[in-house]
C-alpha cells in the first residue's frame, strides 16, 4: 500500500542519512521520489555529497565512495526491516584501509540482530569475524571446506 511504502521509504531514508554521516564524517545524502505526486508508482533516485564536495551526479563519485554509499543504504534497509542474515561477497574489494575499518565496525554493530556471512580476501575483515571457513580445491575443480578457525 502507498502508506506502507512511504513509511518504509522515510524511515529508511533517515537511517541512510545517519549512516552516511557516520561513514563519511559529514556531508549530505538521501533518496528522492522521482514523482512526488505519484508515490504509488514512482521510481527512486539517490543523491550523495561527501563533506566539502559539491553535489553532483552520483556516478561521478569514486569506486570506493559508491561501494560505501551503497552499503550504507543496504544497512539502512536492514535497520528498518532486519533480515535474519546477510551475505556479502567481496564488498570490501574497492575500499581503502580506513574505509574497511568503517565497514567492519558497521557490520559488527549490526551483527547482534543480523548474522553476517562475509566472503573476503582482506585480512582486516577476516579479523573481525568469529568463525573463518577456508575453502580450497585440493582436487582441481572440487571444492572442499578444509578449515574452521575461531577468533
Amino acid at each position, binding site marked *: 500500500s502507498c502508506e*506502507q*511504502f512511504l*513509511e*518504509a521509504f522515510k524511515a*529508511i531514508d533517515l537511517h541512510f542519512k545517519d549512516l552516511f554521516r557516520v561513514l563519511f564524517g559529514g556531508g549530505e545524502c538521501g*533518496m528522492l521520489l522521482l514523482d512526488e505526486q505519484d508515490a504509488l508508482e*514512482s*521510481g*527512486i*533516485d*539517490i543523491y550523495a555529497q561527501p563533506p566539502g564536495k559539491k553535489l553532483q551526479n552520483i*556516478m561521478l563519485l569514486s*569506486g570506493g565512495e*559508491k*561501494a560505501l554509499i*551503497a*552499503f550504507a*543504504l*543496504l544497512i539502512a*534497509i*536492514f535497520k*528498518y*526491516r532486519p*533480515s*535474519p*542474515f*546477510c*551475505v*556479502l*561477497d*567481496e*564488498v570490501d574489494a574497492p575500499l581503502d584501509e580506513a574505509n574497511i575499518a568503517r565497514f567492519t565496525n558497521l557490520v*559488527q554493530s549490526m*551483527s*547482534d540482530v543480523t*548474522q*553476517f*556471512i*562475509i*566472503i*573476503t580476501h582482506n585480512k582486516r*575483515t*577476516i579479523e*573481525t*569475524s*568469529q*568463525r*573463518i*571457513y*577456508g*575453502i*580450497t*580445491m585440493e*582436487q*582441481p*575443480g*572440487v*571444492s*572442499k*571446506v578444509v578449515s574452521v578457525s575461531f577468533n
Partner: protein
Amino acid sequence: HKLESLELVGFKSFCDKTSVIFNDRITSIVGPNGCGKSNVAEAISWVLGEQRPKSLRGEKMEDVIFNGTSARKPLGFAEVTLALKPIEEATLDDGIPVDPIVVTRRLYRSGESEYLINDRRCRLLDIHQTFEGTGLGFTSYAIIEQGRIGSILTSKPMERRSLIEEAA
C-alpha cells in the same frame, strides 16, 4: 529466525556433500580465486528460490549442477539445504513456539525440480512466500553478489523502488 547451517551436494564445484555451520554473528569465508566461495553464496540464493540463471552466472539452470572435472564424472542433480532455527524465546503471537525452517531445493539434469520445507514437498512459490519481506525473498537485498554492491546506484529507479517495497 537465525541461520543454522547450509548443506550442498552436486551444486557447482561442491560435488561432495559439504556442511557449513553458521553459529556466529560474523562468519568469514576465505580461499584462493576460483575455490568456490561465491558458489556458496549462490547456493544460498538458489535454495531460497533464485530463478534467473544469469544471476548465478549461468545460461541455463542446469549450469548449477556439478559438471565434472578431468578426474570426476558429472553428477545427475544438485541439492542445497538451508536450516534456520528460532532465536531464543521467539514465540508466535499466541505463545506457540516458533518452528525451525529447513528448506531444500533439488534440481535434476532432466530439468525436474523438487522443493521441500521441513521435509514436506512444496512448490517454489511456497519458498518465496516463506521468505517474503525478509530481504531473502524475491527481491533479495540480503545477498550481495560479487561485484554487485554498486548496482543499487546504477540500477533503474523502479528497481530501487522494488528493494524498498520488499522491506515495506
